[in-house]
């Protein structure tokens, strides 16, 4: 009882000053994400292509629908590099099609539609998937019936059904919303209701595991209502799997829309999308391969960058991998 009296009890109880400022979780995520070169490139390209289709029409003000029959079949400007006789023009950097419509303006317009369909269908599918996943994970009574339903939808033949639905319901929706909006609503809706199942399964699994943890028990014991538990405690904790399945959903939605346009059941013919442009130029692709290549490369690069983004996000958002 002699030495301990020397100790200063107040100082011992005081917190030490933290040696460095605390790091937020999102800074860690960003640091890990930055290490994944492919994901960084993918994210960059996605931002670039989105800005390109949003602000493109303000910079490149040509009307994509304007027919200019004198300037039809202009080759892209780079053709001049190996073929100095080719019909090229600086005012038509990507060339024109067989009716003289400007390819660059069409690429911008088509990309707008393709990306808008992709984003809208992804958000809708994510919403439905998360809702069903949360409901069946949190409420035991709903679990059986909702998961049975998910299994049933999973065993539907999706591409044939998509084709059937789009062909059969085209007319009334066009009449109700106008030719372009009607088709947009139809395609977005149909892609969304056929692609929410994976998200629902993942979310349900995560919720089932999280629900048994102590912090949820604590929240319940102070009388938090289920709605608040879900929105305040569960959803923020399952953001990472939701974000990863969002990127997958975006990629699938873009490909599905292009496939539908390619098969000729998508948007009306004067309304360009990348898939439609590709399909329209296939018959003359031997003379004008660039008209297949440009939209094809645009679709592929967008989907590739989204896939890489998803890969990087998965690594960055998983705390078990993040430390390495």
């Amino acid at each position, binding site marked *: 009882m002699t030495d301990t009296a020397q100790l200063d009890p107040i100082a011992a109880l005081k917190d030490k000053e933290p040696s460095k400022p605390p790091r937020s979780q999102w800074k860690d995520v960003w640091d890990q994400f930055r290490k994944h070169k492919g994901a960084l490139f993918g994210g960059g390209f996605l931002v670039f292509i989105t800005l390109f289709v949003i602000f493109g029409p303000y910079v490149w003000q040509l009307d994509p629908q304007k027919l200019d029959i004198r300037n039809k079949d202009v080759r892209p400007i780079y053709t001049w590099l190996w073929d100095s006789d080719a019909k090229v023009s600086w005012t038509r950097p990507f060339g024109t099609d067989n009716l003289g419509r400007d390819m660059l303006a069409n690429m911008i317009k088509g990309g707008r539609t393709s990306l808008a369909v992709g984003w809208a269908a992804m958000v809708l599918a994510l919403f439905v998937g998360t809702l069903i996943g949360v409901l069946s994970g949190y409420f035991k009574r709903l679990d059986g019936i909702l998961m049975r339903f998910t299994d049933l939808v999973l065993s539907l*033949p999706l591409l044939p059904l998509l*084709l*059937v639905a789009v062909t059969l*319901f085209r007319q009334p929706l066009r009449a109700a919303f106008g030719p372009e909006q009607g088709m947009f609503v139809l395609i977005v809706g149909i892609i969304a209701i056929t692609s929410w199942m994976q998200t629902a399964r993942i979310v349900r699994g995560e919720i089932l595991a999280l629900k048994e943890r102590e912090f949820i028990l604590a929240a319940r014991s102070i009388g938090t209502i289920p709605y608040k538990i879900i929105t305040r405690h569960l959803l923020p904790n399952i953001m990472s799997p939701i974000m990863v399945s969002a990127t997958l959903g975006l990629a699938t939605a873009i490909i599905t829309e292009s496939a539908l346009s390619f098969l000729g059941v998508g948007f009306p013919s004067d309304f360009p999308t990348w898939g439609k442009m590709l399909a329209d130029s296939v018959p003359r*692709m031997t003379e004008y391969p660039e008209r297949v290549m440009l939209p094809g490369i645009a679709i*592929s690069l967008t989907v590739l960058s989204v896939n890489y983004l998803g890969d990087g996000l998965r690594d960055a958002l998983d705390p078990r991998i993040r430390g390495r």
Partner: protein
Amino acid sequence: MLTFTIRRLILSIPTLLFISLVIFLLMELAPGDPMAQVPLTVPPEVKEKMREALGLGQPGYIRYLKWLYQFFVIEPMVFWDYLWGTAHTEGVQRVISWQTRSPVMDIVIQRMPQTLWVVGMAYIVGILIALPIGVYSAYRQYSVFDQAGTFVSMIGFSIPPFFTGPLLIVLFSVQLGWFPSIYDTTHVVTDWASFKVQFLQMIMPVMVLALQTTAQISRYMRASMLENLNQDYVRTARAKGLSEAVVVMVHVLRNSMIPVVTVIALGMPAIFGGAIITENVFKVNGIGQLLLTALFANDIPMVLTLTFIFAILIVVFNLIADILYGVLDPRIRYD
């Protein structure tokens, strides 16, 4: 295992019934009149008679039940008759296509071999390429080969078949002139030269379909191998002096194949769906192309039957995957 199989088989009946109902209701709710192409000069009572001749006179549920009966009872009986030369189905009403006025199943049987050849061959080729890639990139994780494999399979995921198809046509049939761009289904293999023609025309469609299969399966193979390579039994196998080839190719590979085999079974129906696009690109007249033309012609019985055949494929392969998983992995017990 047997009880599980029987239980799953019985469970798949309501699933199939539900799917058929969904497809039928989709067609039923959709507007679109099969009489729309009939000239306006045809009087309404004649139109009504034509409607009844197409079987449209009755209410929906009777048509649904009739279609179910025709699909599940009459068509198998017709097949039975065809096999054994009996005549149980003489004069019985079958599912009739509105386009050709001939039984739907006859046309499907005519188109099936083309699809099966191209799709089946593509799947086998894809698997044969994917498995070694997956094994090697897992064994040399993060090597140049592994990185390249990851990149290539990422590309395989991302480039849609309706772009790779035209790309290959431009490259190989237009620029180089190696392969024909159109798949000739009337071609008959009789000797070596005609076999070569058949082989050449199959290369491109098979490659397009196989690219996607390869991308997917090689990823699964790699992940599954990686999981097993760090297990204790691998260390034991090495410690008792087995050669590296035996350790990897026998011990690890056999255990890693379990999830991969189920993925292969599950992917089979998806490749039939993907064949719709590939058949369209290469002008193969298989069942995918049949579905498309039937859709555009508003041929409801044909579309209904074909979509349902796709659904049966999915359900059957899901069942096969589940059973295979139980058979291959003794740790899994369903009972």
